[in-house]
């Protein structure tokens, strides 16, 4: 089951570049939350703070508090543990090219020391079914490389890989921006199904996509969160002038 995320006074830097300034919001459990905004507004940095991937860059720095469920992730937790509870899907599909489809999905489990083959088989099957890829790959699970799939399939494989470790939160950083429309709609359907089990945070450039999949939407601009509200409110009756300008296409 998913858990909520509470963000309090989050600030982030890349070197001397203050990329996130005083972010406060509550992301509800078991819903999809979309983050929109023009390029470079800090929305990717924001999701990378939620699983502490931001700090893998040596010049990056973070202050503030993020609570995932009861866990304060910057206070008394290791990045490695947090990343096992918070899955992530990246903009470009990044399956492991030297591993089979099966091993791609099982990779996270093997890191956790799983070695029971029957249990592994079950989890791999369940994850691939959850990511709507099972029917397309079940015949050559162990024969084909993760890189031999099409772009859309690769992205669903990456989703299966993230789901296999049974996270509470799933972060998606523009998961469909490198895909064709058919693959994109498959990913969107998937998000729709998955949000009953996971808390999903999706960064997107595509406002229609945000409107289609998310209950809540946040609008980021220049490192600040301008507005955070129910999706239909953001798109029909935003309270901030800048949000309105952005969604009506006056800039960005």
């Amino acid at each position: 089951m998913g858990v909520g995320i509470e963000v309090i006074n989050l600030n982030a830097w890349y070197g001397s570049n203050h990329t996130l300034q005083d972010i406060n919001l509550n992301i509800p459990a078991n819903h999809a939350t979309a983050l929109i905004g023009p390029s470079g507004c800090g929305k990717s940095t924001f999701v990378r703070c939620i699983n502490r991937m931001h700090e893998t860059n040596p010049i990056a720095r973070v202050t503030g508090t993020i609570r995932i469920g009861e866990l304060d992730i910057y206070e008394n937790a290791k990045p490695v543990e947090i990343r096992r509870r918070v899955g992530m899907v990246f903009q470009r599909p990044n399956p492991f090219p030297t591993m089979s489809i099966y091993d791609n999905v099982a990779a996270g489990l093997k890191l956790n020391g799983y070695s029971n083959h029957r249990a592994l088989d079950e989890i791999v099957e369940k994850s691939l079914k959850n990511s709507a890829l099972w029917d397309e790959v079940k015949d050559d699970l162990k024969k084909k490389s993760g890189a031999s799939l099409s772009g859309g399939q690769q992205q669903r494989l990456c989703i299966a890989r993230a789901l296999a470790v049974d996270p509470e939160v799933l972060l998606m950083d523009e998961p469909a921006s490198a895909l064709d429309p058919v693959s994109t709609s498959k990913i969107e359907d998937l998000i729709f199904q998955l949000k009953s089990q996971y808390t999903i945070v999706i960064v997107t450039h595509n406002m229609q996509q945000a409107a289609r999949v998310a209950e809540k939407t946040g609008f980021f601009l220049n490192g600040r969160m301008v507005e955070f509200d129910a999706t239909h409110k953001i798109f029909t009756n935003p309270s901030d002038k800048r949000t309105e300008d952005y969604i009506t296409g006056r800039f960005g």
Partner: protein
Amino acid sequence: MVLCAFSIFGIVVLIVWQLVVHSQLAWNKFGLSFFYQVFTDSYTQQKLYWDPVNEHFSALPFIFGTLVSSFLALLMAVPLAVGLAIFLTEMCPTVLRGPLAFLTELLAAIPSVIYGLWAVFVLVPLLREHVNPLLIRWLGWTGLVGNDNPTGLGFLAAGVILAIMILPIISSLTREVMTAVPHSQREAVLALGATRWEMIRMAVLRNARIGIVGAIILGLGRALGETMAVTMVIGNSPEIHRSLLANGSSMASVIANEYAEASADMHLSALTEIGLALFIVTIIVNAIAQLLVWAVTRGTPRSAR
């Protein structure tokens, strides 16, 4: 310009042609058995491989010496080189990276005769006084380290000096293929909750392994053909021993040692045939290595293995 380009082919063809022509005499007399035959000394009744005076010529001890010293070198250099490459690409502070990389590259620029001199004056005494006695005490029971060579010269000394010489080649190429592993692969593994070591194993080493094998084979190519430093420390006797501390001889070292003094046609021809064999082997080894490195740095292969 075209002439310059073709001169490369010309030179290679000329080398092969000369090697083939001058080795004809030995080839005609011994055929393939040149590479494995064993003679018996008519006086001592012991095994004999190389006796120019009685025209007994067998390449076997030299092939043995080349292989043993090269593999000893790989055994020592590979873990060190790969470890160094991992440190430089994945964990080294940026301030240290430049100087360390520069120093390793510098090792490659030292002439091999300098390595040889250093080996003769520093390494060999060190082995003789301190390392070999310990090896004999601890590993004597394996039979791989015998207590019958008090000089400190031999396969082990050659292996150590070769290891130092091929270290920069292996580590700089390994570094190159590791750097070619896309950042997204590292992020993918980290996002699954991997520690840094797990990330290095799963993302970096796994994706770069073919290139690393290529780098190792390239190092092997260098070790097989290395002449000067090996000649100075391997002991130069055409014998085959189980002990790694025994004197031996390599294909390159016997040519360097004897070619200038050989006067009999058959002796010259036998040496040339060893040269031809060495030439072919190193060309093949280098070609394989270049192909592997090229395959990785050009983009990851698409099929799983």
